[in-house]
């Protein structure tokens, strides 16, 4: 595995001079799915931001706006039975996994109808049914846990893959490398998806990381890695396909560094003074993942009206979720003492 990056690239046959890949072209159906799923996350997060401002959501609330192409593109590369786990910026991951907006929003407002009956909140939600394993508030913990999910797949001899998402900040945690070591040692089918949004809370990657090319973070363990344009859902899907195939074939873990950007602060309470307004606006204007798809669809002769219809459908789901989340009752007081032991 001397040059893993190349060996994978050869299989895809689309290698460019710099070792990266042309994004696969999407069918119209795929473009529409991607657009709808990304829009759902965008509108959901905007609404969550509003509800937070109104005091309906408490505590920490980390929005995923700007990063939508990653979870949506990766989900398109998975099959039923694959597992997903992530950190605290998790709303987008849950929606992409097919969890209902209503249940996620009601968890944000701490209501009984939330995915964790209101006991987990924004950072701690799970769905056994959708194979979503959280939602973890401790930076980096999900990397070992996700490696454990892959361990279970290998133990059971199935061909499922686990996706462990984490950020550029978590990439500096020690347990990440402990996990890398064991994952490669035991050839565990786990894809480490590093969502590099350039800031770990308020600290930019250049101020926190000696090696800012996160795709290389697995080199000392012989784990192949690639940098991916995380703002282009087609590039994400293409990279996801390759990584998934690598894992399903029993070749061990794979690292994907998704280069992305979060438009909002680290959390709702972050004024984001560590970067300029211009920097944010430039990414929004030039690279927005949703606008990219929309523009391609318009260029392919889809009408504004058709696109508006998708937006309206998504808004309806989000509004219904917000309505439910504000009217559903809080958990019964008796729930205080349930779910501590089985």
């Amino acid at each position, binding site marked *: 595995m001397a040059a893993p990056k190349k060996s994978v690239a050869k299989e895809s046959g689309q290698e460019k001079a710099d070792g990266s890949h042309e994004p696969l072209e999407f069918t119209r159906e795929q473009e529409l799915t991607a657009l709808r799923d990304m829009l759902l996350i965008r509108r959901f997060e905007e609404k969550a931001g509003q509800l937070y401002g109104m005091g309906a959501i408490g505590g920490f609330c980390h929005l995923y706006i700007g990063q939508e192409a990653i979870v949506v593109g990766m989900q398109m590369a998975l099959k039923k039975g694959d597992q997903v786990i992530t950190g605290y910026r998790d709303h987008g991951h849950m929606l992409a996994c097919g969890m209902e907006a209503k249940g996620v929003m009601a968890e944000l407002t701490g209501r009984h109808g939330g995915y964790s009956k209101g006991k987990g909140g924004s950072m701690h939600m799970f769905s056994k049914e959708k194979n979503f394993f959280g939602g973890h508030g401790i930076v980096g913990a999900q990397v070992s846990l996700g490696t454990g999910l892959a361990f*279970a797949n290998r133990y059971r001899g199935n061909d499922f893959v686990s996706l462990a998402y984490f950020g550029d900040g978590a990439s500096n945690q020690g347990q990440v490398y402990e*996990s890398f070591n064991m994952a490669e040692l035991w050839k565990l089918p786990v894809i480490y998806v590093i969502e590099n949004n350039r800031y770990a809370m308020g600290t930019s990657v250049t101020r926190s990381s000696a090696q800012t090319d996160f795709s290389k973070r697995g080199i000392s363990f012989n784990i192949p890695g690639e940098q991916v344009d995380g703002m282009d859902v087609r590039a994400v899907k293409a990279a996801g396909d390759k990584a998934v195939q690598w894992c399903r074939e029993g070749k061990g873990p794979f690292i994907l560094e998704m280069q992305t950007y979060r438009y909002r602060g680290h959390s709702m309470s972050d004024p984001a003074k560590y970067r300029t307004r211009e920097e944010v606006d430039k990414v929004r204007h030039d690279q927005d993942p949703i606008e990219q798809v929309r523009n391609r669809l318009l260029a392919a002769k889809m009408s504004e009206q058709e696109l508006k219809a998708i937006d309206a459908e998504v808004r309806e789901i989000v509004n219904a979720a917000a309505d439910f989340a504000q009217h559903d009752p809080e958990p019964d007081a008796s729930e205080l003492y349930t779910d501590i032991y089985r």
Partner: protein
Amino acid sequence: MPIQVLMPALSPTMEKGNLSKWLKKEGESIKSGDVIAEIETDKATMEVEATDEGTLGKILIPEGSQDVAVNTPIATILSDGESAADLGKAPAPKAAAPSPNVAEEVAESRSPVGEGKPMIDAPKAPPAPKAVAEPDPEVPEGTEMVTMTIREALRDAMAEEMRRDPDVFIMGEEVAEYQGAYKVSQGLLQEFGAKRVIDTPITEHGFAGIGVGAAMAGLKPIVEFMTFNFAMQAMDQIINSAAKTLYMSGGQMGCSIVFRGPNGAAARVAAQHSQDYSAWYSQVPGLKVVAPFSAADYKGLLKAAIRDPNPVIFLENEMLYGHSGEVPKLDDYVIPLGKARIVRTGGHVTIVSWSNGMSYALKAADELAKEGIEAEVIDLRTLRPMDTETIVASVKKTGRAVTVEEGWQQNGVGAEIAARIMEHAFDYLDAPVARVSGKDVPMPYAANLEKLALPSVAEVVAAAKAVCYR
């Protein structure tokens, strides 16, 4: 003068071993570094290297000898110019052994009752004074009892559960090919293979997290920590991930996992390797915490822990691994978690302890009996959930209570027991509850200081007398 070769100690807790083989004959010349003999403990076979040059003069302990005490002279080496005739000049073997043997004395003071030498499988050890044990309700009368070490009881418990459930596996440092750092997992690799008996790198935080992740996916890992001292590196995964996930997921996603390994002080391994985590873990809702004392309880409770759908911290004690006890010969001996056991009945004072603390408690009860004080000794066995009922019922009878623990006193388990007694049996108390505990210091290395830092039988006796106003 001829040099004496002494029976070496091969681990901090070794007190005896078998001399399995001599590799040099009398009269053969020996260079420093030569392997002269093989010694076998209950954990391993080790080679004895000569540290001196000369000729092997006389073999004092023939090969095949069992239970040779550490520091017993096993041979003499003649230096250049000395001959067999000089052998008479060697001091008598007994006198040559360092005296007093401090290490042994310390271990003795902390060994379980009736087991002067905790690391021996010990048919020759002095018989344990019979505790007036209440029959364990889980064992049918007339059940055949098998004597085995706690190490074997643990191994059997894991093997039985692994046979029963293919989702159970063990992972940890040196659990497979090395057969366990303390030989607790001996033979498991041979029976279950490398898929289910997994050597990990030295990476506690990482493999604890992988274990929890595998448990969230439905497997039932047994995660062995070489000692719980090293589990501090893994505490985030144990508490934040394993203990809290069921609650945080509204009951959807649980974690059936056992974290086990030796806890507390071994012997002469100093502060970083001698810490009791009873209080630390038993504070956390979502965890169950088990800390047994007897061989039967080690087996029955570990089986229950593995089956439990919750994360269980199973605190073992290295000093007890070689201690033998009777284990009921039953197809499936499972002791429910959360039930204390009255090991000795008495009406004058209640002594509550668990794990190795029981060794002080039981010896103290013997001492007290000589002075006419009948102590009721409760082995808590499970610290969370705590069997408050059994403690309170006993205190209502005796009116007095002493707690015994090796851990520190502040916010300790003894403090919790005292609080519960106050809450539930205040009107029955004839004296304030007394606590005997480890001293409020990091564990020192020096033998005398280490002994002082730990609880002692004398302290338990004094505390019991104090609450009896005697």
